[in-house]
């Protein structure tokens, strides 16, 4: 049995006196698709953001690809360590965070060029392939302001993929989209899942979570309340809190 690609042990996170993560353990194997669900404020986004250290943790350990992510290091070494790790961990945000002053293709080529991964011709060729993959081969020269929300989010996914990450983090990526644009983004994620990309998806879209994930984690108040394959968590939840959450969401 291989070592899991992400291993989290006893993870705690405080914002001031507020404890938002109260001891999380998690193992994610290569190629697995995890869905993190739960009400707003349950800590699922924070958990996701600790994995690439956009949030520092208060206590506990996060391992990625055999390396301790939250090592205590002097500032400069820690920065170098994080920059290297983050190059292998893609992240897609709720509000896209595309660089508005760059065209779609420049958004995609920026990091690989900046980090000296490839030369310009290679970067452009790769970016064209990625934009094609997310169905936007004809939008390369558009600025983000000229793209729809769904298109922006697909460019953002292509931008993350340009670094050839081993893990992709999705932080409520369809929550800010008009309902009719959700499908196009979900389709891109699904295609990615079918290529055996390791993915952690924080989402409120439970139908999508059930459809795409192979492991669901239900969180409440900074703790994992219930987890398992989607067929179990969604169809036969054991915990009362899971049941009431699912009932609330599906009755809406």
């Amino acid at each position: 049995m291989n070592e899991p690609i992400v291993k989290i042990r006893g993870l705690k996170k405080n914002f001031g006196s507020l404890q938002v993560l109260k001891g999380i353990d998690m193992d994610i194997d290569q190629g697995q698709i995890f869905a993190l669900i739960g009400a707003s404020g349950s800590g699922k986004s924070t958990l996701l953001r600790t994995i690439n250290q956009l949030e520092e943790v208060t206590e506990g350990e996060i391992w990625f690809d055999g390396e301790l992510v939250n090592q205590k290091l002097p500032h400069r070494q820690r920065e170098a360590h994080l920059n290297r790790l983050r190059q292998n961990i893609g992240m897609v945000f709720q509000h896209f965070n595309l660089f508005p002053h760059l065209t779609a293709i420049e958004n995609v080529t920026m990091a690989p060029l900046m980090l000296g991964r490839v030369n310009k011709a290679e970067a452009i060729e790769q970016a064209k392939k990625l934009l094609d993959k997310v169905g936007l081969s004809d939008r390369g020269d558009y600025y983000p302001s000229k793209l729809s929300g769904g298109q922006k989010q697909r460019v953002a996914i292509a931008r993350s993929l340009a670094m050839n990450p081993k893990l992709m983090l999705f932080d409520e990526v369809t929550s800010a989209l008009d309902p009719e644009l959700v499908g196009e983004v979900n389709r891109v994620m699904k295609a990615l899942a079918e290529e055996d990309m390791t993915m952690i998806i924080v989402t409120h879209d439970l139908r999508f979570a059930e459809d795409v994930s192979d492991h669901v984690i239900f969180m409440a108040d900074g703790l994992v309340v219930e987890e398992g394959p989607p067929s179990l968590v969604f169809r036969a939840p054991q915990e009362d809190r899971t049941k009431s959450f699912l009932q609330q969401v599906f009755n809406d």
Partner: protein
Amino acid sequence: MGLDFSILPAYADILWQGTLWTIALTVLSMVFSLAGGVVFAVLQLSRHAIIRWPVAGFAWLFMGTPLLLQLFLIYFGLVQIGLDLNAFVAGVIALSLHFAVYNSEIIRSAIVAVDKGQYEAARSLGLSQFQAMRKAIVPQAVANVTPALGNMMIALLKESALVSVIGVMELTLSAQRAISDSFRPFEFYIAAGAIYYVLNLGLEQAVRVAERRSAQYR
């Protein structure tokens, strides 16, 4: 003795030379003050007080004292510690530093105003703090403040007249030379004023183009 502008062509040469020096002075100071403004702004946002404080002190000094005094300090004062700058260089330094401090305040607030998500997106791709600043944050910040920086540059062009007092033969001093030769202050001050005005019109056009280009993504 009424106004007689027919005197001007005889002094066209000296006015033309003065105009060229004013342009050189302004353009160089503009470039340095903008570059310096970005550098100071980024330094002021450093996590380390040891970097922030000297820059803040420096900014406070340059905002709190007259440009004329700074000019004297750099041109006459530095000689005492063995730094004998020529007047043009001293003028460029004084104007650059003075306006860099103002520009940095404008740029700093614009950097702070750029959405935090932009920084996070850049860092999540593996860019360093510096790379994220350079490629993601600063270009947006500068685009947001092109109009404000443009106004500073127009002020710089006009303030460059101060450098005449340390003997740089720019437009204002050239006009004075022409006056002391011709005893025609009104005509030459009006002529110099007209030239400043035309230069500023040109500068305004350039600012407008820069504004359009830096914000073309909107």
